[in-house]
């Protein structure tokens, strides 16, 4: 019997004591270390130094009396929580019948420390949410690095970029070697999205020139045309002008103002609508307008490439037809965007007067 107790004690005192440090959190896992083993470890200055900063203490030997060592706890001034693994094991020990484990009693006697009722029953609850969110162990990525794309970026940048990239792969068979023939792997998909995103940005640059050219014969951008009194009824136009004079204190004649001034007014109008939470449909029209403009730009570049590479008449004809369709959609969504924006603006700015 004496051997058995001794062997068990020896095994426990040979426990591995692990410190896990994650951000501002430091957790100690002492296994089943008993008092005698703790005291031996305290002879190591490095171990003593390591105890400083522990804020979550996993009770040794399931919180049993023989796993308790006051000298160790005295060296941990920053404890904010205690966890017991399988506390029922402690209860089964005849020597420990008190309601609190010794470590909890020690903490309860110290003002400013968490009281026994605060002790998290599960370790995961004791670890602050931030540490879990950061997924201890994974390198942190900056928010900007790992953020999700929004609707406009998907519709207006990635999709036209992907169409352009795929079109180029189709027109230039040699470039297909970039991607494996047997399906697309996850890594290649990621690479493709990056290339599509980069290509999409350039494509939208071309798209800006296209829209500048496109709207010229129609009398300028749709929002400018709305301001000039086109596309909407005379009554609506009157209300728009009135709202702009009242809220935005616009003094110039919006029907004839210069383009930069006109764009500044449109931006102001959008921010009023967005602040009122009414920009949902406006954003959808804007995203679709960006998509159509990007598609028109990709198709235009592909059309030029097809002409340079002397592709067949069918290919060129198909690209011309698709380009025309994309321009038609762009025109439609551009008009919808301007109408929706100003109608919402009139409604939003009319509300305070009604109340």
């Amino acid at each position, binding site marked *: 019997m004496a*051997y*058995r107790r*001794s*062997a*068990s*004690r*020896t*095994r*426990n*005192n*040979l*426990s*591995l*004591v*692990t*410190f*896990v*440090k*994650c*951000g501002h959190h430091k957790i100690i*896992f*002492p*296994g*089943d270390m008993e008092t005698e*083993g703790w005291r*031996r*470890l305290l*002879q*190591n200055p*490095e*171990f003593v130094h*390591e105890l400083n900063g522990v804020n979550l203490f996993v009770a040794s030997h399931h919180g049993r009396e023989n796993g308790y060592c006051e000298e160790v706890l005295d060296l941990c001034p920053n404890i904010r929580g205690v966890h017991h693994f*399988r506390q029922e*094991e402690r209860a089964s020990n005849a020597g420990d019948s008190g309601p609190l484990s010794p470590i909890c009693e020690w903490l309860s006697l110290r003002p400013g420390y968490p009281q026994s009722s605060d002790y998290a029953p599960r370790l995961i609850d004791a670890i602050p949410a931030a540490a879990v969110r*950061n997924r*201890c*162990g*994974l*390198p*942190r990525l900056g928010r900007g690095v790992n953020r999700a794309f929004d609707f406009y970026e998907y519709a207006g940048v990635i999709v036209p970029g992907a169409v352009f990239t795929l079109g180029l792969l189709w027109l230039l068979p040699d470039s297909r070697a970039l991607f494996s023939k047997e399906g697309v792997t996850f890594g290649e998909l990621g690479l493709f999205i990056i290339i599509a995103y980069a290509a999409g940005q350039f494509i939208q640059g071309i798209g800006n020139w296209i829209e500048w050219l496109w709207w010229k014969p129609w009398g300028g951008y749709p929002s400018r045309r709305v301001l000039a009194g086109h596309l909407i009824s005379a009554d609506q136009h009157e209300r728009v002008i009135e709202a702009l004079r009242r809220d935005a204190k616009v003094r110039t004649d919006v029907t004839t103002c210069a383009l930069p001034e006109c764009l500044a007014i449109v931006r102001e109008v959008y921010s009023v609508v967005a602040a009122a939470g009414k920009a949902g449909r406006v954003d959808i029209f804007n995203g679709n307008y960006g998509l159509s403009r990007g598609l028109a730009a990709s198709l235009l570049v592909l059309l030029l490439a097809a002409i340079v590479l002397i592709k067949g008449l069918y290919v060129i004809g198909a690209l011309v037809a698709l380009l025309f369709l994309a321009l038609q959609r762009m025109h439609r969504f551009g008009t919808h965007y301007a109408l929706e924006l100003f109608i919402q603006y009139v409604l939003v700015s009319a509300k305070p007067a009604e109340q």
Partner: protein
Amino acid sequence: MFLARAGIHRLDRLLVTNYDEDHVSGYPDLFGNIMIDVLVRNPSVMPGTIRFLKTEDGMGNGIDLLVRSIESFFTGGAPPAIDDFGDTSFSHYWNSYGLPPFGFTDEKQFEPRYFR
């Protein structure tokens, strides 16, 4: 198998805090289903010593497989080349084993040792 259901099929490190059955009862399940890269344990305790210390209590399935895998699988060797866990770090301390029946005799600490 909790980890496999959660989509985890490989562990970078498995820490064995002590050589008691209640701490390693899940080891056979883990060893059979998950790839364990490195076993971290008190390296001063030889497999034979664990058997010796378990003479009276008897060896449970977990401890038995752990001892056998220490003998044949996690036999030591060069520490892992990549030891980067981002903003999380680990440090280990232990008492070294002396000759029974005197129990542990040497409190000297070593650098953490890994067994692959």
